[in-house]
């Protein structure tokens, strides 16, 4: 009952606020403020003269509002020049091309970018919690205001300031630049463009809406993490590129080296073995390309939402740091089911992978254990693996064991609120922390500093 009432109130308040932002100019807002303040403080007209100011301000507001009701004709052709994708948190500029098709010069227009209505549904408002909401006081948690604001911001993803357009001569085309910064990964859904024209006093705008639906992909912000070179046992052996259909195996002999566990016996240099009585392996020219598995843990509760975002950022960095075009990377994560996407040599580009990453959501009900069958099925095709875990449980240990059993070099990144606690937790299951990096989430670090 209370939640429904609050939801209705916020919805109405947002609608009024949105109307005000487009219909009322800053001067108009100031004038309305004068009406209220002079009415408030000038209530006793026998002692103050503020009622005179209020009367004048009311007349300005009423006249201006009535004047703004008269429509204006504006025929135009509008085109938005958007980039393919942008990165969350980075400032970007795009352009809008406007052609004046009306028979008069248009002066003093204001352009407003419109995005699809960002108001969440009641169900979403109740279910989708704000990150760090558990740290808010009970009042804030009950009134849901901050959650509402967060959801609005998330759905809008970026704020657009109104742009004062230069004069639009008849038939002329101009381009205006829009500056914006996307806050979250995902999409920005543009719904249209609104042109506002101030009334004769410049207090209220008359609007003309133009539909122009488009969407812009916002990639996650990459977080730089030092990842060591993961040397595969299969490097310098022939047949490394078996998955690449267009290129054959290499038989170009390069040299000899001592045997290491995992080396195929067929490459043993028997003559040297006979001489030295130690296993020596033939090395061939490396035509091997890496096929890395990137395992992303998505089982995140609201409390660790920031950690999940950090994990996505790290995953984004891993994908975008693929330099050799011959490498392949398999992004794997588990939601309601296990998902696996490959990119690299002949299998699609990294942009597609980043797009998937931009849209991946945390799933409270999921378990990384669901990925085990897929991993076991594909394990033979991988040369190394990078795992990004949000926690350390038996299921995570199981994943690490799979890679160890397959003698695949792996690098485990575990994100944690508290590094020392997580270290202790991991050391209960593992002998050493070799190949495991524990990262404290940047946001949590800041929070702990504040404490």
């Amino acid at each position, binding site marked *: 009952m209370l939640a429904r009432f609050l939801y209705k109130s916020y919805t109405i308040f947002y609608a009024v606020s949105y109307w005000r932002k487009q219909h009322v100019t800053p001067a108009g807002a100031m004038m309305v403020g004068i009406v209220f303040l002079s009415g408030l*403080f000038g209530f006793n007209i026998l002692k103050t003269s*503020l009622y005179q100011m209020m*009367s*004048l301000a009311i007349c300005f507001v009423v006249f201006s509002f009535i004047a703004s009701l008269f429509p204006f004709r504006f025929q135009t052709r509008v085109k938005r020049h958007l980039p393919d994708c942008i990165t969350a948190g980075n400032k970007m500029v795009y352009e809008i091309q406007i052609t004046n098709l009306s028979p008069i010069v248009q002066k003093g227009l204001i352009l407003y970018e419109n995005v699809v209505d960002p108001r969440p549904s009641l169900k979403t408002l109740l279910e989708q919690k704000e990150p760090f909401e558990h740290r808010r006081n009970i009042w804030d948690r009950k009134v849901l205001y901050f959650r509402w604001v967060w959801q609005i911001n998330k759905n809008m993803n970026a704020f657009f300031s109104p742009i004062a357009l230069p004069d639009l001569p008849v038939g002329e085309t101009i381009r205006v630049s829009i500056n914006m910064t996307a806050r979250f990964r995902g999409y920005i859904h543009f719904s249209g463009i609104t042109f506002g024209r101030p009334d*004769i006093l410049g*207090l209220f705008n008359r609007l003309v809406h133009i539909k122009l639906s488009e969407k812009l992909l916002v990639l996650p912000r990459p977080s730089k993490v030092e990842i060591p070179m993961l040397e595969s046992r299969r490097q310098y052996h022939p047949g490394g590129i078996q998955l690449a259909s267009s290129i054959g195996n290499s038989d170009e002999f390069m040299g000899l080296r001592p045997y290491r566990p995992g080396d195929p016996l067929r490459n043993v240099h028997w003559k040297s073995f006979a001489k030295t009585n130690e296993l020596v392996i033939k090395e061939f020219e490396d035509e091997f390309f890496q096929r890395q598995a990137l395992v992303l843990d998505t089982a995140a509760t609201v409390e660790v939402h920031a950690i999940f975002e950090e994990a996505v950022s790290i995953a984004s960095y891993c994908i975008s740091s693929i330099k050799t075009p011959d490498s392949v990377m398999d992004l794997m994560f588990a939601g309601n089911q296990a998902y696996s996407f490959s990119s690299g040599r002949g299998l699609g580009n990294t942009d597609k992978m980043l797009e998937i990453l931009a849209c991946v959501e945390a799933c409270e009900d999921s378990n990384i254990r669901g990925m085990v069958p897929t991993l076991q099925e594909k394990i033979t095709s991988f040369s190394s693996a990078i795992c990004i875990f949000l926690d350390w449980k038996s299921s995570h240990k199981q994943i690490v064991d799979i890679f160890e059993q397959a003698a695949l070099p792996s690098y485990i990144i575990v994100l944690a609120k508290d590094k020392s606690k997580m270290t202790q937790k991991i050391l209960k299951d593992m002998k050493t922390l070799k190949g495991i990096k524990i990262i404290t989430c940047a*946001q949590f670090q800041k929070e702990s500093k504040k404490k």
Partner: protein
Amino acid sequence: MKAPRFFLGVILLFWGWHHHLLFVAVSLCLIVESIHFLKIRFEFRPADFNKFIDVSIVLLAGTVVIALSVETQKAMSILLRWLPVIFLPIIAAQQFSTKGKIDIRAFFLVGRKKERIQALDVKQIDVSYYYALIVLLSTGMTHLRGKIFYIGIALIFLWALWQVSPRRVPRLVWGLCLFGVVFFGFLGHQAIHRISVKAQMWMIDYFANYHNTNPYKSSTALGDIGNLKLFDEILFRVKKSNYDKSETGILLQNATYNIFATTTWYAQVGFEPVQPGNEKTFWQIQPPVENKKEMTIYSRLVKEKAVLNLPPGVISIGQMKVGTCEKNAMQTVRVEEGPSFIKSLVTYTGNLSYDAAPYERDLMVPKKEQSGIEKIVQDLDLENQSKKQILKTIKSFFSTQYAYSLDLKGKGRHDTPIQNFLYNTKAGHCEFFATTTALTLRQVNIPTRYVTGFIAHEYSRMENCIVVRQRDAHAWVKVYLNGQWENFDTTPASFLQKDSQLVQTSALTNILSFIRFKLFQLRHEVGKKMMEKYGFWLVLPLAIILIFRLKKSNTIKKSKSLVKKPSENSGRSSHDSFFLIEKLLLKKGYPKYSYETYLSWYNRVVPDFDDPHVRDRFFRILSQYNKWRFSRLGIDDIQKRQFDLDIDFILKKIESYFKS
């Protein structure tokens, strides 16, 4: 939006003029507007703005403390009056900053800590119009008769709106619209004034019935049925030197009425203001006399106003901190704009020599009451007695044949409650005795007036003063005898005893009331003196906080002069003068878009100009501009001079072209 040049200065002068603080206003004006003459600018970081905002907050807090301590009832008015000074640090910081704007986060304590969103949410605002609004609100807090304020406000509004007026609207049309709006605003404010005055009068009347004595009307309980409820709440305290505890009681008049209708007494006299003496605490009600008595009354005000309970023949009231004081011809005194607790040092003569001579209506008896009153007059044979005898007869008549009672019996089978009292119940409370006495005496041509007030009779040892409770409310009559008004009370003397028996006082209530009184006294008497003596020490902690906050202000960097010194070579100085053409053409509807080069812009613009000289000169300017700006060699002095001449030529040509 930035306020236009001198806008803030003019508003500040307007403020100073209205508040008689012209000297202060000129100083503020000089500070705010000096940016147009001084080249000093400071590179304020967001943290530096925090300090200026802190200064304003401390000033605000200090003003609130001082205003509440010195004049509680006018605290809001004092605060609003000084707002332009309080917020001066913020506007001055903005004016002298290199950015000319303030980071919005500086205004919020939470925002100051949000470094995380620094890259995303930084919003700079210009506070000049907000400051202008504050100054205007402060200006409006004065009440001035006449049209000066309205005219001033209208001109200021026009000035501000001129800045945002759309360029597409012809100036004449804009001006006519504005004139119409200002005219309707004028009519509107006059209408508001009229309506508000009526509404306020109605409200005063309405609330007066519930919270205060209405000096124009007194509703009695005559005619009611039930029981008159009395309470033991202490309403005020009286301190009198040489108080004789054996005295029966001091009559303290609240209000006097002279017209009776049905069950209500009315007063048909107007009030006139009493001019205050020094510091608005001394009020001379009557001309000074020699033999006068003194009495101190501590009373409470409800909704900042009250009708005072005063002894007869008040000469003056001292130490009373109120905004206005008024009196009427029947010596009713009312005050307004006072704190919730006031002290009044009253000097008085003890006789009613200052009450106005009788009017005709002081002899009026309502027709409905005449039959009943006439019968009493006949029964007592009053018409054949002298005036003094009449008073004696009536006094003894009521004291022997009538009893004091708080029971309310209505009018019974009689026409009026008075007749029911006279012939049936023969018992009633003071209102019955006073009203019947007044009407009976009027019937025999003795002018009378009905008085409400209190009888102060209860001496409190604990408080060392006379306490007057709600149950001590009383009504009596003023009688005009031998050219002099006299108090005449016919209520049986036993009424005080009966009331005391009926309404027992509680020791706990008395103690609580005493504590409350002492707290009031501490705040309004001692507190004020303390504030005057030690106010500086009270504000000192705030000042220390302020100094602490400003400790690091020396890290603010002074910026180098923003204005470039003109070069020695030529008059106009640099290739920047080329932008004059760009600016002018922008105004005329030929903007240069960000994606255009100057050459493509030139190619787009020049076909509209028929004059080949313009085209050639424009092209020459463009070439020279590029050469001057980008070439390593630049251009020589002769070429620079030619460049300036060409620009002047083009500017004139463009202007004349568009005029034609």
